[in-house]
């Protein structure tokens, strides 16, 4: 092979070859006209057959957004975004809305098969149907999936099975149609339209996302998940997720995401709202694997996301776990507002930046109720020329007597051209509250790598092992099957970062 071709192949295998989800699905799409104005907001609302109140809600958000400015405080740099140079609605062109999986475009089904996302419900073993736990074939717990492709939900599995328990799990646009009162009661109550620039944008143009309602006292019998896929060019994804856990209920929810490799930057600005009432528990896990751009920083997703939970009820608990490996830029702070007495907020995070990736991520824990407790464990890993910032706020109101917070921020550096930054804010207005903050910064030492290699591990396996060890406290919070995925992903994300 000529040297030039060989070089090109080698470079490709090192840079592009590592992102295994970068293919594009060729399918007929329907777009809104490019750009953003009131008509586009009306277009989206009409596409979804929305009631007038929601259109008004969107238009109000749009008016707010027009007066707002992009936040400049994050420690990330990027060229100005032209919000008029993108599509705000893109959906597979279906003549009729598919009623079952059989009616979904086979090309879409192939896409999800290729991504390893199970859309088909696994056969439930005879005799155990209706039991609390439902083991599927092979003894594994089934996972209910809502698959969002660009701007629309294409399929949601196990809806009927969950319906027997009174659980609602569907696309948010479907929820608006079928359960308008529930949606109206909660939408925007955790993240109001004017909360921040991207939340306002999302409120104006959000398309799909998942809606979950767990009734009183119900323990959701399976993991719920949403899989987000950006496919179309020059398209932003603005999903909105709303999860309500009624009194005494429990739910574990997962989300995953991927996108094709493109030279352009694509915007993903989501809003996630969680509401936990008395004694309710929500566990929300994210494995974020948007296309990170190439080794030179070309392309990749801008992941500008607002996630917030309100622990409204007494003794309620919300736990965020995130593994952030993808995206060119990540800007997100999954937060907990601890209103109910004795409520609990947790945030476990792993954020990796390799090549030219930038991440400014962390959490806000707002203590309002008495004896509220929060735990923050953040693991930042920087490699290549990646920049990684932990930004966190712990605020204790005067009402939050005997509140407790523990924060631990660890940074790991690989190589000498990356950066790690920790920006913790603590605002304590309560005499009886206690907050603790611990932080460390370390490197993968040459002697650790050599030790592993002397035992037969390749350099990349050694880095993977050491990084997984570094992240262990966070990874163990993930549901079992996700944890395995996440471990592999950590290793893949760091390919080419040593040697």
């Amino acid at each position: 092979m000529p040297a030039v071709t060989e070089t090109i192949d080698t470079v490709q295998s090192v840079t592009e070859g590592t992102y295994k989800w970068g293919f594009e699905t060729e399918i007929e799409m329907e777009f809104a006209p490019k750009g953003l104005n009131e008509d586009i907001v009306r277009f989206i609302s009409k596409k979804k057959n929305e009631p007038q109140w929601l259109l008004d809600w969107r238009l109000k958000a749009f008016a707010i957004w027009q007066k707002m400015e992009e936040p400049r405080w994050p420690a990330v740099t990027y060229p100005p975004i032209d919000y008029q140079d993108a599509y705000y609605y893109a959906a597979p062109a279906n003549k009729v809305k598919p009623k079952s999986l059989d009616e979904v475009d086979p090309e879409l089904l192939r896409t999800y098969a290729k991504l390893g996302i199970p859309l088909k419900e696994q056969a439930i073993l005879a005799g155990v149907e209706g039991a609390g736990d439902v083991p599927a074939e092979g003894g594994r717990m089934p996972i209910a999936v809502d698959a969002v492709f660009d701007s629309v939900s294409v399929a949601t599995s196990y809806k009927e099975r969950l319906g027997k328990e009174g659980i609602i799990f569907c696309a948010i646009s479907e929820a608006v149609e079928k359960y308008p009162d529930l949606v109206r009661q909660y939408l925007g109550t955790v993240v109001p339209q004017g909360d921040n620039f991207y939340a306002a944008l999302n409120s104006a143009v959000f398309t799909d996302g998942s809606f979950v309602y767990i009734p009183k006292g119900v323990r959701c019998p399976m993991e719920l998940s949403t899989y987000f896929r950006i496919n179309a060019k020059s398209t932003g994804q603005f999903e909105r997720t709303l999860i309500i856990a009624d009194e005494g209920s429990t739910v574990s929810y997962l989300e995953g995401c991927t996108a094709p490799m493109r030279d352009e930057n694509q915007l993903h600005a989501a809003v996630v709202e969680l509401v936990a009432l008395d004694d309710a528990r929500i566990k929300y896990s994210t494995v974020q694997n948007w296309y990170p751009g190439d080794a030179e920083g070309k392309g990749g997703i801008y992941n500008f996301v607002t996630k917030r939970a309100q622990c409204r009820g007494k003794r309620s608990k919300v736990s965020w776990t995130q593994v952030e490996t993808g995206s060119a830029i990540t800007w997100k702070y999954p937060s907990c507002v601890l209103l109910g007495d004795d409520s609990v907020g947790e945030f476990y995070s792993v954020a990796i930046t390799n090549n030219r990736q930038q991440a400014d991520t962390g959490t806000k824990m707002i203590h309002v109720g008495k004896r509220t407790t929060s735990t923050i464990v953040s693991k930042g890993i920087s490699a290549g020329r990646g920049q990684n910032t932990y930004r966190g706020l712990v605020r204790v109101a005067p009402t939050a007597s005997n509140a407790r917070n523990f924060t631990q921020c660890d940074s790991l550096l690989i190589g000498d051209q990356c950066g790690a930054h920790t920006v913790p804010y603590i605002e304590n207005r309560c005499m009886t509250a206690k907050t603790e903050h611990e932080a460390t910064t370390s490197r993968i030492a040459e002697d650790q790598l050599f030790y592993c290699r002397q035992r037969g591990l390749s350099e990349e396996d050694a880095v993977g092992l050491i990084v997984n060890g570094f992240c262990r406290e966070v990874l163990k919070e993930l549901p079992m099957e996700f944890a395995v995925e996440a471990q592999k992903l950590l290793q893949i994300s760091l390919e080419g970062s040593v040697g």
Partner: protein
Amino acid sequence: MLKIEGLTAEVEGKQILKGIDLEVPVGEVHAIMGPNGSGKSTLSYVLSGREGYEITGGSVTFAGQDLLALEPEERAASGLFLAFQYPVELPGVGNALFLRTALNAVRKARGEPELDAMQFLKVARERLKALQIGEDMLKRGVNVGFSGGEKKRNEVLQMALLQPKLAILDETDSGLDIDALKIVSDGVNALRGPGFSALVITHYQRLLDYIVPDRVHVLMGGRIVQSGGPELAKQLEAEGYASVQAAA
């Protein structure tokens, strides 16, 4: 098994090994003794392929291969094991996972099937029992919070699992009390046989009471200055390295 000819090496531009000639036949255990700064640890790192050691001349043949052309993990896969003087801590990495990953990496390279968690546990338990090491060793992070003796025992456990063709023990006796020394020595002796060779690097003769070598070499100033049988170690203990230096 191992043949070193005219090996010279530098660290940060300073020549440390100045022409080493050494042959360890299959099934033999050789000891290398020498004062501090004679190049003992450099020799073990050069043989195992650590970065930062520049080889300026000579050759090393191991099991019929040009050892110096291989990456560290390839050397490990072909049967070379280094028991570290200062075993390294890997926080958050479970010892069982580490040992299984290492064992499977080596098995894969040898074309043997990899072991799953249950199969591995069975093998590991046998080795632990034979070495009189408690099972909790598997549950802890790799060398994290281990005492000096525990770290060395963990090295011997790894050696027993990986079953190398050649083990280099780099001052494994340093920092060991007499009980730990016995466990470590028993571990090495248990592996002795026609398929196993070892290079025991030590400062003191004490270890060689437990691991009796076939040959003893004295390394001074980057060269092997004297070789002999086990009695040479005893002579060094009695008369010190100065006597050898005078003779050389």
